[in-house]
């Protein structure tokens, strides 16, 4: 089978899984559906010849599921929301608007380079000179750690700040109510 057929199958699977995750009532099923969507994305990365990304996405997905389940798997969170709570008109208007956005954006996708024929202006330089200039056989890590090292520094800063923020938010709770058990 050609790769496009596989990718269409995986993407359709991801779309169905996402809709399931959003519409399902049970919280645990919803989180697990999101996990399945992320693992399908990891498979899609493998098909698109990005093994580094597939490994990182796989790890990310497992960590995300662990965090979400640890945080939200309490009995008291599993409340049934009453059906009068959902606004049907708002949902209908949103779906129609998003459909219109999709319809009008199809012309934009026609202007993009076709699938399988990238421009690769910058990448040509990296592919030709990456090994001699950085000494790395893996060109993705050559770009991350050498050509775009400042990007990676910024990424680490953002990640550090986010983790620091999350820890700070959780620690406030510990001080105010010491008897309650730690959730995350």
């Amino acid at each position, binding site marked *: 089978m050609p790769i496009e057929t596989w990718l269409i199958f995986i993407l359709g699977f991801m779309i169905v899984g996402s809709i399931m995750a959003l519409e399902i009532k049970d919280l645990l099923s919803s989180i697990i559906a999101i996990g399945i969507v992320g693992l399908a994305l990891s498979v899609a990365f493998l098909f698109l010849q990005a*093994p580094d990304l597939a490994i990182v996405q796989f790890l990310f997905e497992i960590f*995300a599921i662990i965090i979400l389940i640890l945080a939200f798997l309490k009995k008291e969170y599993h409340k049934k929301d009453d059906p009068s709570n959902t606004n049907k008109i708002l949902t209908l208007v949103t779906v129609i608007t998003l459909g219109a956005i999709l319809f009008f954006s199809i012309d934009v996708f026609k202007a993009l380079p076709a699938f399988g024929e990238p421009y690769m202006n910058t990448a040509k330089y990296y592919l030709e000179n990456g090994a001699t200039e950085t000494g790395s056989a893996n*060109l993705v890590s050559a770009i991350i750690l050498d050509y775009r090292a400042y990007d990676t520094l910024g990424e680490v800063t953002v990640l550090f700040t986010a983790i620091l923020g999350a820890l700070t938010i959780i620690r406030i709770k510990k001080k105010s109510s010491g008897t309650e058990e730690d959730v995350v």
Partner: protein
Amino acid sequence: MILYILCFILLLVGLYGVLTKKDLIKIILSLSIMGYAANLFLILFAYKNDAIFPILSESAVQEAMVDPLPQALVLTSIVIELGITAMLVALAVRLYQKYKTFDITKIRSLSG
């Protein structure tokens, strides 16, 4: 082109969740769906027909490699997404402890 459209539909599903859902947990999940779609879109651009992954070896030819630049940038983006998810989850848990609900309409109607 059908792949781009499907990927955009995935992004729109996430946007639909952000706009219509009232449960904070569902909104966090929708945000991560949008992240998946954005990452996948960039990698779809990078693919070249009959090309292999950008790791040099004896048998690999440089002309037949996929674009390594979007892969490097998306690698950054995935890691940041994990940090953002952790922070959103922490915020949601704190909000639940204060208001005893995940419903954003009820949280909005309460003051302080």
